[in-house]
């Protein structure tokens, strides 16, 4: 499929709808040549599959972090007409509202570095990490309903975070229209014990130092003023609650595909017409997981603050531990862009509306970025940008190539204190398993869809 790609410029590539039969629209990839050359052909094929779906609006977007995924690559955006299109559980993926919160501090790198060996284990105790940890919160069904419908407002009412956090979260931390009656009992049962847990896989909590500021005016608005300032990044999602909602609706929508006679090039792209019951029920249930995930991140943010209070013997307010921004990168949203409404499916992709923060996670040994969205992103990518550096190697291959203990030692040599629930996590998430984040961020910056504001380097890493 790659041979059919045409160059638009150094950072944009066109895969015309003539590339294969059934494509209704073109696909476009944002990447520099080096990244493009290393994208799997199967991932490009997946973009063309999405271009075949009903009501798809040109173009289907592949971002520089894209890699082969479930149905659609991670690092992709697809927009559907708000009347003629589809809503797809497959295109959103299993981890609904997987996302990132960035939290600032006024602590300097020297203040934090001398406490790191105390801080990292303390955080590990405060935040349940990995598949083996039990959550500290046990919701009842009424409370879970409140989390689903009120999102972070539930958290703030219950002492986790403040109204300032709400303002600094995408959708103000609560999508309206969430309907708990559309969520299965099994999903709810999985959600009860897991609020305030990190999970595993690529989810992490990282203590970072600002290494470069590219746009000091914008950084200042985010409360980032100093190259030695310490920030915190939290990456996780809606846990088993969201996984179950995705699983349930993949089945429901698979039946809908037959019912509405939709032709799918890949059964994993299960979907339903936007105005069908199966489409709207998913959308209402998905919003429950979105709100759960926003709440999950804010609950843990508060525990991070309390842990810093214990270690640094100051109040979190005195340490200025405010949310810089919280953003999702696995989501379906009805958004109006330049006068037209679309159901935008972002899978491993971040909203990048003009002058809004974009958070891009690197690996546990490499830099992460805060960027800002642009007008050009509205024109080119339905207001979207990349979400991370993107995997380049399978977990299986990683386990053969890396040893967890050695990965941890290498981080130590770089001055990074790390802790994971097991050594396997270190191997599977080794920096060498991912693309070069610098190339990825350069691609979105030079394509103009999000501009660099701040670069951060890791000081301490916790993995699930």
């Amino acid at each position, binding site marked *: 499929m790659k041979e059919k790609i045409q160059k638009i410029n150094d950072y944009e590539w066109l895969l015309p709808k003539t590339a294969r039969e059934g494509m209704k629209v073109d696909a476009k990839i944002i990447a520099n040549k080096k990244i493009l050359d290393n994208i*799997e052909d199967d*991932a490009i094929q997946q973009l063309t599959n999405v271009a075949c779906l009903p009501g798809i609006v040109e173009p289907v977007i592949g971002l520089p972090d894209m*890699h*082969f*995924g*479930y*149905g659609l690559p*991670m690092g992709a955006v697809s927009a559907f007409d708000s009347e003629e299109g589809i809503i797809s559980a497959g295109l959103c*993926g*299993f*981890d609904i509202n997987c996302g990132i919160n960035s939290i600032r501090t006024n602590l300097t790198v020297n203040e934090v570095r001398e406490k790191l060996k105390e801080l990292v284990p303390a955080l590990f105790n405060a935040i349940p*990490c*990995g*598949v*083996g*940890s*039990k959550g500290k919160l046990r919701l009842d069904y009424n409370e879970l309903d409140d989390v689903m419908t009120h999102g972070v407002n539930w958290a703030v009412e219950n002492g986790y975070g403040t109204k300032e956090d709400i303002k600094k979260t995408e959708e103000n931390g609560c999508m309206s229209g969430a309907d708990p009656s559309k969520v299965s009992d*099994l999903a709810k*049962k*999985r959600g009860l*014990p*897991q609020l305030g847990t990190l*999970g*595993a*896989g690529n989810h992490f909590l990282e203590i970072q130092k600002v290494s470069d500021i590219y746009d000091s005016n914008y950084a200042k608005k985010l409360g980032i003023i100093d190259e030695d300032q310490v920030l915190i990044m939290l990456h996780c999602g809606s*846990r*088993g609650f969201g*996984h*179950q909602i*995705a*699983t349930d609706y*993949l089945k429901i929508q698979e039946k809908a595909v037959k019912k509405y006679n939709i032709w799918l090039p890949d*059964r*994993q792209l299960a979907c339903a017409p936007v105005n069908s019951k199966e489409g709207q029920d998913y959308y209402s249930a998905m919003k429950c997981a979105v709100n759960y995930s926003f709440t999950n991140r804010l609950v843990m943010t508060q525990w991070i603050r309390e842990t810093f209070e214990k270690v640094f013997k100051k109040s979190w307010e005195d340490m200025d531990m405010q949310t810089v921004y919280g953003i999702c990168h696995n989501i379906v949203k009805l958004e109006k862009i330049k006068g037209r409404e679309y159901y935008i499916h972002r899978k491993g992709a971040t909203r990048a509306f003009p002058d809004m923060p974009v958070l891009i996670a690197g690996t546990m040994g490499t830099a992460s970025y805060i960027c800002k969205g642009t007008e050009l992103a509205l024109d080119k990518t339905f207001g979207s940008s990349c979400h991370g550096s993107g*995997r*380049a*190697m*399978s*977990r*299986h*291959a990683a386990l053969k190539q890396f040893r967890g203990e050695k990965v941890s030692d290498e981080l130590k040599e770089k001055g990074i204190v790390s802790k994971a*629930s*097991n050594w*396997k*996590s270190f191997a*599977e998430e080794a920096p060498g398993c991912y693309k070069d984040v610098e190339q990825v961020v350069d691609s979105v910056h030079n394509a103009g869809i999000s501009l660099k504001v701040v670069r951060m380097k890791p000081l301490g890493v916790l993995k*699930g």
Partner: protein
Amino acid sequence: MEKYKFIDDLTSDVMFEAYGSDLKELFENSALALFSIICEIKKVGEEKIIDVEVNGDSLEELMVNWLQELIALVDTDELFFSRFEIIEVNENNLKAKIYGEPISPEKAGVVVKGVTYYKLKLEKIKDNYKATISLDI
């Protein structure tokens, strides 16, 4: 006979093949492959016993529903499982007893988010069965 084998196919996720001389063994070994990712099965005891029953429109669907049920049980009952005894299985229904112990960080592996349809296949080769299954991690 080998019980299961991991295949290097998926960039972000995990694919395995499981084998069995009959359907019971195939479903048992598929569950073992799944739990070898979720926890260190060799260290997990068998003191908690749960009865499981799942249905499906086809054998493939039954396999997905079986593994999906087990993934959900890790969250709802907070257990790791190490032994799977299939009591009976046919094209549309499976009854099993599964054995495990409460989750603990010391024996943990990775969270499995879901069972996918990517290259999903159940086949009978001569007298043996083989399942190809991909998991979203």
